[in-house]
């Protein structure tokens, strides 16, 4: 059968790419081979548009055990313990089928982590929806939240953090980014690199069905009005099987049975077998009739391209087959020897002893196209003039509107649907600056957070990229954790458009600059392009997942005000930058101007100094100032602690509105005991950190002379009612 233009197009390949395949193979591929090429050469699997820019990210550091390129990144947290973590997008499928799309996103990222020998100990997610008024948003929100919960709750991994955002730029493309943090022994990490010739290739887990065929290609294409017709490309999740697979794999990993292991994620059997062979510089031969199938008469093409979930490919040491088989049977999982490693360096596909396809591995991995796409720079926007008359605006009204805004308000409605306490080690719950889980049976804590700043990235990608790394760093510092490393999920529009490609390049450069400066390396990640519908793309939305270590959980900090009559200090300077703030958008109706500037020196200095204060037990509570500004941060600390605060207006020249609602960076609010003031100010001065006292905690009310006197109950109500009203 010859391959027509239409068939090539349907596989998401360009005619030029098809020509390249023919040249490399020195013949035309058959349909199965074309399918395999399309699975490996699509944007999602090949990183063909992003690779040359991702090289700019710093990926090495003292704590890095394994950087990008494996199933997940690995960092050293001492005592022979390693943290394995990664974030991944499931945007396209979640828009088409929110429950299953989100659920399988969670399932996929957990498999990436336990594939490496780590037991997942925390899940997080970052989800972005269109405007609340958009007709699809409510349904998508419900479906995604229930899907994330449905999967994570069943497997029994606590969901300890995340974020939920609404913005009209996601009307046609929602974002679902799922992150998993796992714990392994540092000397017992499993990798995907195959080795040895004639070793058994084992298929375990669920049977292969016809679901998710071309899922990775779908995730590499933009949408139009017919997006829903792509439903059959969405996989269906079975968290119960995932739980069994998790336990069975971790049990098999106890001894030396496994040479290498890889989950069948995007592009299923194709990408898992090719990646294992490519890394080991080997060949692999698969006998496809041996693949356990859910449906009758499945063709080799369907088997190779199915993205059925909860499946793993394992290369076993010789002689371990019967023991492994017994173990998987105990867990009621399918087990089949479907092939072997070879020295041919080819992917050889057989069906009932007949060769049905053969492709040199090299062509699928290293020879995949690489693009240096054109991109355009975004100029730093001019500062918005201060023409607006801020004096007419009331602090009280602004506070009320911002604290109840869907992007600022409490997300309890969301995270109450996620089991966040299973495993019995959650010591800081969702709704905090970072989620913290204790490393089981130790006094160490792992803090994790996931953050985005699409408005800043959209206004100026380079600054936005820096900012989101700093935001993540700050969230970890605020709980008393030393930031160690990050994973990123880069959600962007169409890379074939210069503007979108430019947003990507500059955000990546911003991320690189900040993470290098903060010694906060990138150890894993994922790129999601083509978040575009009918030519309208999302705002550039890189998500940063950060992990930090609390060496002694007795020193962990929470954000709730602890008692009356403590002093409240701001660490970091407030300059009054309102452009791109929630206040500017919601109260002034103003979308122009640059995002707040990032000064990496101050960021690092303020953060490490706060960690020093925390380490010396001088801090009662801390919270970083982010979206919404200073007053919102204080209100949040009041709500959590059910304690009020008396706040003074600034003595500086800054207008009180700018002072209270600007989103200047590198700032924290801290609550301290008056006895410690001298000690603390000495340390801050010694480190040249800017700080100021802004008030005291008190009973009941948040109070600013002549401006504001609100009971904490009332603020809490404002903060906590949006979701319930919206959903009902």
């Amino acid at each position, binding site marked *: 059968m010859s391959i027509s233009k239409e068939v090539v197009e349907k596989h998401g390949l360009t005619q030029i790419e098809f020509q390249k395949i023919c040249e490399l193979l020195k013949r035309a591929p058959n349909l199965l081979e074309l399918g395999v090429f399309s699975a490996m050469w699509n944007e999602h699997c090949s990183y063909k548009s992003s690779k040359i820019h991702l090289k700019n990210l710093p990926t090495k550091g003292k704590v890095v055990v394994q950087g990008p390129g494996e199933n997940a990144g690995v960092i050293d947290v001492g005592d022979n313990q390693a943290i394995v973590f990664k974030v991944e997008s499931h945007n396209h499928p979640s828009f088409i089928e929110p429950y299953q799309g989100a659920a399988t996103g969670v399932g996929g990222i957990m498999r990436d982590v336990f594939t490496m020998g780590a037991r997942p100990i925390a899940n997080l997610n970052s989800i972005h929806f269109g405007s609340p008024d958009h007709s699809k948003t409510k349904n998508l929100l419900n479906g995604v939240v229930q899907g994330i919960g449905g999967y994570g709750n069943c497997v029994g991994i606590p969901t300890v953090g995340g974020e939920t955002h609404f913005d009209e730029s996601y009307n046609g493309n929602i974002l679902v980014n799922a992150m998993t943090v796992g714990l392994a022994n540092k000397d017992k990490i499993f990798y995907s690199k195959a080795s040895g010739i004639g070793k058994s290739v084992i298929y375990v887990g669920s049977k292969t069905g016809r679901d998710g065929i071309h899922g990775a290609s779908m995730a590499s294409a933009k949408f139009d009005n017919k997006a829903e017709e792509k439903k059959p490309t969405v996989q269906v999740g079975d968290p*119960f099987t995932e*739980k*069994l697979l998790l336990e069975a794999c971790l049990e098999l990993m106890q001894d030396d049975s496994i040479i290498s292991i890889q989950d069948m994620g995007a592009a299923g059997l194709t990408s898992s077998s090719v990646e294992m062979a490519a890394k080991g510089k080997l060949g692999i031969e698969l006998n496809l009739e041996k693949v356990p199938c859910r449906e009758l008469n499945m063709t080799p093409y369907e088997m190779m391209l199915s993205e059925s979930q909860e499946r793993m490919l394992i290369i076993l040491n010789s002689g371990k087959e019967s023991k492994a088989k017994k173990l998987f049977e105990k867990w009621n999982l399918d087990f089949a020897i479907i092939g072997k490693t070879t020295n041919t360096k080819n992917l050889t596909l057989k069906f009932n002893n007949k060769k049905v396809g053969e492709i040199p591995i090299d062509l699928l991995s290293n020879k995949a196209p690489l693009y240096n796409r054109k991109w355009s720079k975004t100029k730093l926007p001019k500062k918005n003039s201060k023409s607006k008359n801020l004096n007419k605006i009331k602090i009280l009204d602004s506070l009320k509107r911002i604290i109840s805004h869907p992007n600022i308000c409490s997300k309890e409605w969301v995270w109450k649907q996620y089991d966040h306490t299973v*495993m019995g080690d959650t010591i800081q719950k969702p709704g905090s600056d970072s989620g913290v889980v204790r490393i089981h*049976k130790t006094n160490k804590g792992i803090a994790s957070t996931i953050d985005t700043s699409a408005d800043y990235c959209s206004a100026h990608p380079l600054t936005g990229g820096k900012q989101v790394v700093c935001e993540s760093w700050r969230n970890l510092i605020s709980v008393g954790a030393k930031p160690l490393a990050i994973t990123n999920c880069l959600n962007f529009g169409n890379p074939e458009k210069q503007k979108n490609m430019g947003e990507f390049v500059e955000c990546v450069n911003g991320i690189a600059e900040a993470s290098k400066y903060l010694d906060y390396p990138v150890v894993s990640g994922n790129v999601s392009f083509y978040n575009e519908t009918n030519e309208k793309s999302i705002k550039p939305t890189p998500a940063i997942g950060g992990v930090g270590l609390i060496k002694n959980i007795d020193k962990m900090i929470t954000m709730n005000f602890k008692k009356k009559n403590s002093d409240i200090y701001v660490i970091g300077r407030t300059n009054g930058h309102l452009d791109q703030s929630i206040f500017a958008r919601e109260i002034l109706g103003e979308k122009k101007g640059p995002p707040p500037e990032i000064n990496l020196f101050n960021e690092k200095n303020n953060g490490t100094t706060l960690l020093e204060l925390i380490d010396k037990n001088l801090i009662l509570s801390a919270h970083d100032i982010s979206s919404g500004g200073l007053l919102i941060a204080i209100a949040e600390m009041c709500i959590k602690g059910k304690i009020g605060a008396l706040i003074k207006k600034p003595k500086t020249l800054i207008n009180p509105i700018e002072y209270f609602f600007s989103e200047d960076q590198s700032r924290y609010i801290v609550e301290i005991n008056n006895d410690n003031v001298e000690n603390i100010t000495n340390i801050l001065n010694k480190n040249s950190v800017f700080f100021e006292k802004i008030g005291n905690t008190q009973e009941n009310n948040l109070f600013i002379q002549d401006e504001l006197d609100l009971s904490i109950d009332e603020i809490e109500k404002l903060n906590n009612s949006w979701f319930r009203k919206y959903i009902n």
Partner: protein
Amino acid sequence: MLSSVIVFPGSNCDRDMAVALEKFGFKNSMVWHNDTELPKTDLIVLPGGFSYGDYLRCGCIGSKSKIIEKVIEFANKGGLVLGICNGFQILVEAGLLPGTLLRNKYLRFICKDVYLKIKNNSNTFYSKFKKDIIKLHIAHNEGNYFVKNDELKKLQDKNQIAFEYCDINGEVSESSNPNGSINNIAGVFNDNQNVLGMMPHPERMIDKYLSGNDGSLFFNNIKHKLSI
């Protein structure tokens, strides 16, 4: 003191329960659902989770596991059996406890701290409690307890209601009912009061770092009772 935690495919609070039992002095064994014999034991715990994925009906397939026959035998001889969350659902499906657990009233999974009013203070599980309101954690999708009126009356008459959801002051009302359970019931005993099923998770509240410590009261009390 010996305890046994039954592990079903899909259990996910089995480890947490074992950790709690060991912390309070039990020598614990994990018992696989397919086993046909129980080890020597003073207490059997059916842990939380999603046995068999909660497919068909929560706890239904789990209640047909081989080991359940032995658990029933053990219970009928007066042995102490505790079912938490999915374990409660299994006990109900196995016929060891009355009633049934329906989908939560608002059709959503709920994970939060709740206050519980202790209704029965004369049983083996927690007769020594000094408090009559405790704080525990719930995390479930099907915790909406239901029994028919005549059965409810029997439960009340025979003092078989273990806990009711209440507020911080002990007020039992619709607003303190997280899942729609009839009469705010959070846990029930069998006739002999040697089998207890409850939706809240005491094993998640056993040290000061977690959101509370009232689970410790629970385990300490069972230990105390068993050692007399």
